[in-house]
């Protein structure tokens, strides 16, 4: 239930492109400001207080990435990105794309055709005692 709720929330965020980065930035800025004030009350110089506050917060970029990953669905995001990239590369060199696609189509087609014959003749012969003589009188 909890999991489903979270999933749909993220799906809707993903579909509508709703981003929480602005909000996170603001929260982190406020967090740093409060921690800096507290450090200064504890007797640090302003620059040292800011430095210690940033250290305590940790890597801001990593936090942003994780926050974004939670906001949306990174798996689908990456998938779409890869698909777009693939299509772009195919369109960029149509000749090469055509050759590759034709090769693969022929390869798959030939393999399937040969296997169909093998399947019908060797693996599943007709259910009579002498299938080879089926047409003979």
């Amino acid at each position, binding site marked *: 239930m909890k*999991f489903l709720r979270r999933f749909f929330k993220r799906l809707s965020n993903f579909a509508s492109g709703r981003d929480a980065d602005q909000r996170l930035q603001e*929260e982190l800025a*406020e967090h740093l400001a409060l921690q800096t004030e*507290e450090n200064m009350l504890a007797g640090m110089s302003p620059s040292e207080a800011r430095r210690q506050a940033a250290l305590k*917060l940790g890597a801001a970029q990593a*936090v942003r990435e994780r926050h974004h990953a*939670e906001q949306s669905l990174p798996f689908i995001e990456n998938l779409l990105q890869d698909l777009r990239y693939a299509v772009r590369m195919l369109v960029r060199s149509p000749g090469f794309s055509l050759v590759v696609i034709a090769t693969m189509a022929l390869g798959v087609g030939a393999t399937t055709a040969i296997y169909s014959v093998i399947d019908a003749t060797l693996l599943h012969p007709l259910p009579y005692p002498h299938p080879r003589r089926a047409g003979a009188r």
Partner: protein
Amino acid sequence: MKEKPDVLQGTLALMVLKTLDILGPQHGYGIARRIEQISEDVLAVNQGTLYPLLLKLEHEGSIVSEWGASENNRRARFYRLTAAGRKQLQTETRDWEQTAAIIARFFKVKAEDLP
């Protein structure tokens, strides 16, 4: 020097819920500060990791957040426990106590106690 233990997966969420339960609506910094105080600085919580977790809890419907004014009248995002969050806290508290009790029994037992 002994290293400070990292927070066990999943326990940080429980700490956040409990903190909000006791103290009412809090902003991110307030929550981080309380967790630090209550654990008496034994835990090394990388404060930044709190924010993705808060978003996750919000997506799960355990907490809600809204903008408000912080102590010094700046804009801050306040997090509040929902009814579902309170229920989740109760069940998780019970589970946690049960696990701890079982482990404690294993630690207490001696060879001669066993038949």
